[in-house]
């Protein structure tokens, strides 16, 4: 057990575990929450889970490519949050709710 936690592989496994848990929380949140804002936050959580994974693997393998990617993702996520929140605000203003069960106008 100590082995498990002390070798570089072992540390890596904890990171992996953490990011998987984070990602799953995100997925479950997206699937089961009805508030669009929380769904958005869950999406962010998923992105950050991936970021974490990228950073850890990058450190483990000694390759900086992963870290570069993380920056990319963070930039995109920031942009996405800006657009997403703006949409939320706009939807809330016009409909008065951001419950996704109410937001079903976009269909045939």
């Amino acid at each position, binding site marked *: 057990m100590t082995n498990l936690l002390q070798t570089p592989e072992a540390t890596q496994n904890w990171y992996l575990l953490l990011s998987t848990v984070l990602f799953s929380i995100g*997925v479950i949140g*997206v*699937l089961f929450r*009805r508030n*669009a804002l929380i*769904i958005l936050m869950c999406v962010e959580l998923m992105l950050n889970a991936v970021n974490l994974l990228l950073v850890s693997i990058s450190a483990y393998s000694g390759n900086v490519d992963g870290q570069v990617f993380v920056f990319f993702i963070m930039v995109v996520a920031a942009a996405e949050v800006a657009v997403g929140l703006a949409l939320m605000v706009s939807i809330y203003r016009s409909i008065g709710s951001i419950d*996704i*069960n109410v*937001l*079903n*106008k*976009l*269909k*045939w």
Partner: protein
Amino acid sequence: MEQTISALSAMIAPALLIPALPLLGFILISLFGKKLGHLSGWIGSLMILGSFVSSLVLFNGIGSEGKLNFDLYEWIKFAGTSLSFGFLVDQLTLVMLLFITGIGFFIHLYSIGYMHDDEGFARFFSYLNLFVFFMLLLVMGNSYLVMFIGWEGVGLCSYLLIGFWHKNPAYNDAAKKAFVMNRIGDLGFLLAMFLLLFYFGGLDFDTVNNAAMSMEKGSGLLILTTLLLFVGASGKSAQLPLYTWLPDAMAGPTPVSALIHAATMVTAGIYMVSRSNILFIQAPPTLDVILWIGIATSVFAAVIGIKQNDIKKILAYSTVSQLGMMFAALGLGAFESGMFHVVTHAFFKALLFLGAGSVIHAMGGEQDIRKMGGLLKFTKITGFTFLIGSLAISGIPPFAGFFSKDEILANAFEGNKVAWILLSLSSMVTAFYMFRLVFLTFFGSFRGTEEQRHHLHESPITITLPLMVLAVLSVIGGFIGLPAVFSDTHTFRSFLNPVFEQGHTLVAEHAHPSHATEWMLMGIATIAAFVSIGFAWTMYMKNKTLPEPDEQLSGFSKVVANKFYVDELYDKLIVNPIKVLSDLFLVLFDKLIIDLIVNLSAILVDVTGRTYRLIQTGNTGFYVFAMVISMVLFLLFQIVL
């Protein structure tokens, strides 16, 4: 050019002048017709006179021996084949040239008087000149292709002139009918040309004749080619079953009927067969077809002629009948006799038509002979010349028609006795209806209105002069071809000899009828004609019978008066089915079937879209769920596979 005989090269210029003058006339009159006014009639006539003089020069220069054959330029060139635009003037052409330009001139002259008050005076002469141009091209061409230019060109002019009074829809129908019927024949001509071009290696007469000479007699190719050529000829020369346009063509002004639909254009078919005599001699079955179609047409049209009451229609059917007789002569291999009848027929039929025009002129446009009668008193010149024409067509010696007809009958007697009997019958019927016409029109008492009686007058000199000239020709025209019993040399035949001698070498010389037989045949023909005339005299002069009004007709005479319902039959069998087919094609195939298939592709896209849009529920949760499930499934596949 290499075919030009150098001694004759001086003749090229006058030869070119012959078609060029009428073309020039056409261009001048159609461009400046309005300004020229009635001068255009004189210009048009002078152009034809010029052509006539040139023809005389040519006649003098070429004579009975020479032959002028030259190419103007290469017209259509492809793949080593070159089809030239060239002219051929030999004795056959000379004969045609002389009477086309000669009679053409007099008919132009006549038209100046006849069309004097017509608003389309200049237009009329431009069309007439154009017609003469194409007709001259037809007879002067040195290949089937150049002949075909003239062939279609005269068809066009005939169309324009039949529908000359284009405000009248019935006239337009007649014009259209003439053109379309001619086109049916033209398709035959065209296909024949393809055969000639493909198997004979050219379209000029020399090439074709030389090739035909060396071919086996009666080969399938020759028979097919000649039959197709004959289809062309029967369209243009109004033979069964393509004759129905000619009687309708009488809608045109009378000079047109005289020039185009009696004297010149309708004889183009006979000219064409004579020109290709070697081809036809090499295909005896075709000659038989021609013989029997000619005879059938001759008898059939003559019978219809009995019951017609329109003065021009009677003459039209008589033209069809006479053309049938000419074809019968060709079918018997007697090309010279056929051409001889073409010439004499041109004289007396032009005379008859112009006379009829003069009568119509005097009657103020009336054409029904039941409303005429006793006109001889009022229109002496017209009456007497018309009588001469009728005597000529009936075959009374010594008028022109007697000699040419007698020659055909003598040939028929030698060749085929049944043909002889039928042709004699047709000839008798002709004499009967012609004198029915003469008696009803010029003798007895006047049956028209009082107003018409006041209007009756002899026509002006421009009209009567051509009548008199043609009457003289109808009297003496036959002497160019005196039969053997009168004269040792048959002038006309020996003149044409260079054209036909090559063909004659291909057939076994059959014995000429003995003088006794000839006398007998002439006697029979003359007596038969007199009997017919006598019969007509008894009916219409002695008993003063009048043709019944149309509604009182019954039985066979009604069928005859209605021309055996051939037009109606054609309508039912050909015209109406095409109309039905047209609607069927459009509605059923175009709109329904083909468009359905085309639209089906659009419908397919449409249906697909409608189906897939059901997935778009609008429920965001569902979208997210679908997304996650898809990702999981994707990953699973990645791992498993």
